[in-house]
């Protein structure tokens, strides 16, 4: 059993505090993804779990054992680095078996374990090459193989796919997911790519400026973003956000446009309150192209500034109260710039945030 617990974890470099008291409980065998913009402290947090970075405050426990002062080798963890960090002077086989050799295991056992890992990752044909003679994807696999040979309690990944091209990244993403199903282990995975986070995670932890902003399953953070930051960070294209003022059951925007307060937020806002109205492109579509059963809708007339046909759907760029917004047209047809369309907004999927703090008004 290896659950990972972070209690009020702080990291400072001298006077500069970069991680501000993070609390996180990771269950046994859970796949948790830390996601956030560059510089938010994801790697630092991961490296503290690994023992590569000293903890300035708080407590880290792995499997119920506080590991704050333990060196990496005593934590029974594996880590896959962004640039693979394979040992250039060793063959693939030696790379895979290195940890077991250090642990003083008999050669027969090392061979068996490396062959097993090689089989799982399809590396059998490259065992005698050095990392310099491998492609990016193959190196990535060796790095993962090196991590699984020793059957660690926890796998740590730091942006393992960011050096691969788009196609290979998608492919390796699937492999990592499969790997997790094969070798059931707790995984902490760091990325700044929200698609990776959504597709891989059992639970997503969204970080910003050294704080955790929201924790939840991919669907939870997608459907109920805790604030405008999460709303724009998760999902593509980012959520449309328009500032307005609550007036008589509706939100009034600049230019005398208004939209009804979404059902989930009724009774949670006061007259005259300044709010940010949020909705995703997926939930704004031309009338007549709407799916059935999308619940309560509101109608807006929009002038289309630009249409981006993607094949199965078309992204429509327009403007609401001086803010650029995006909608989607399913069953696409050619749309000319300047065309005026009557659109429907699915109110069940609209959100209200505090205009000052950006926090969701849902709770």
């Amino acid at each position: 059993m290896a659950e990972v617990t972070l209690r009020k974890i702080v990291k400072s470099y001298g006077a500069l505090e970069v991680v501000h008291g993070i609390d996180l409980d990771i269950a046994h065998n859970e796949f948790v993804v830390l996601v956030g913009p560059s510089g938010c402290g994801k790697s630092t947090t991961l490296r503290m779990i690994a023992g590569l970075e000293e903890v300035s405050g708080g407590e880290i426990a792995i499997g119920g054992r506080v590991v704050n002062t333990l060196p990496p080798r005593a934590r029974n963890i594996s880590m896959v680095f962004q640039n693979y960090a394979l040992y250039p002077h060793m063959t693939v086989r030696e790379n895979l078996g290195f940890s077991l050799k250090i642990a003083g295991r008999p050669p027969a056992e090392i061979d068996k374990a490396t062959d097993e890992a090689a089989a799982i990752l399809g590396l059998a044909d490259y065992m005698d090459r050095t990392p310099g003679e491998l492609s990016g994807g193959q190196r990535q696999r060796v790095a993962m193989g090196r991590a699984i040979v020793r059957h660690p309690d926890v796998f740590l990944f730091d942006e393992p796919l960011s050096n691969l091209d788009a196609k290979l990244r998608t492919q390796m993403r699937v492999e990592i997911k499969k790997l997790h199903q094969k070798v059931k282990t707790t995984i902490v995975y760091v990325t700044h790519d929200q698609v990776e986070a959504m597709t891989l995670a059992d639970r997503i932890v969204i970080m910003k400026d050294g704080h955790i902003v929201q924790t939840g399953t991919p669907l939870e953070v997608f459907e109920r973003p805790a604030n405008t930051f999460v709303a724009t960070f998760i999902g593509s294209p980012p959520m449309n956000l328009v500032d307005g003022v609550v007036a008589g059951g509706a939100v009034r925007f600049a230019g005398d446009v208004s939209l009804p307060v979404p059902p989930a937020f009724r009774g949670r806002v006061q007259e005259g309150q300044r709010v940010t109205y949020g909705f995703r492109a997926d939930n704004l579509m031309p009338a007549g192209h709407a799916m059935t059963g999308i619940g309560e809708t509101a109608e807006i007339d929009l002038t289309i500034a630009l249409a981006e046909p993607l094949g199965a759907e078309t992204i429509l760029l327009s403007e609401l109260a001086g803010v650029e917004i995006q909608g989607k047209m399913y069953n696409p047809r050619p749309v000319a710039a300047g065309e005026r369309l009557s659109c429907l907004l699915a109110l069940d999927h609209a959100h209200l945030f505090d205009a000052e703090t950006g926090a969701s008004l849902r709770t």
Partner: protein
Amino acid sequence: MSRAMKDRLIWAVTFLVMLIICLPGLWVVLSAFRTNGEILTKPAVWIPQNLTLDNFRAIFGLGENVLAIPVGSYFLNSLVISVTSTVLAVVIGMSGGYAFARHRFPGKSGAFLWLMLSRTVPGIALSLPLFILWSWIGLIDTKLGVIVVYTAINVPFTVWLTEGFFRQVPRDLSEAAQIDGCTPWQAFWKVEFPLARSGIASAGIFAFLTSWNEYALASQLTRSTDSKTLPVGLMDFTAQFTIDWAGMCAMAVIIIIPALILTFLVQKHLIAGLTFGGVKG
């Protein structure tokens, strides 16, 4: 111009340049096999008339005219002094290079600059202060005294060269090794050291050659067979009115040979070291 022609031309030019550079060396080697009389003839005899091994026989005490120069002791002194100071310089320099490459500490860039600036002082400028210091503490005419000086001369360069190599070894590798179960010490020896090996080997060669060939300081600090090194021993061939050029050249050849052998043995590392191609990702 055809490719083959071009190659031949480059080869010819290289040969010419090398010939000019190597000529004095060749002359020394040639003279080692000639008689003093022939060397001193004017006008010069360019093509040797009769080659002889007498000079070497004399040095090693095998011929009829035995030299009074204790070449054996000098050789041993040179060997002990060069090897010891090289080992010390490499161990100290490598530790320093590693620290400069890997760790942050206050005054780091200043310390590095000072180390490098110390190279700008010509060694001979230090000979008088050194001589006075060494005679106070009784290190004049001891191997230890010379070893300390040579180690000090070689450390800055070793620090500089190995620092570059350790900096090329990604930090991740040591971290990965530690996660794989190594202590920091094991991670260094099993991962970082092998990857910086070329640099360390070249630093070692340079240190050895510097110590092996050094003359100026050794000539001040050594007196007798207790500590005199081969280059200093060369001066034994000068008497008050005569210079035994042939013997001197023969001894120079004896000095050159170990250095040449060593350089050939590790030239693979040396080339890698000098071109900084030691590590690839």
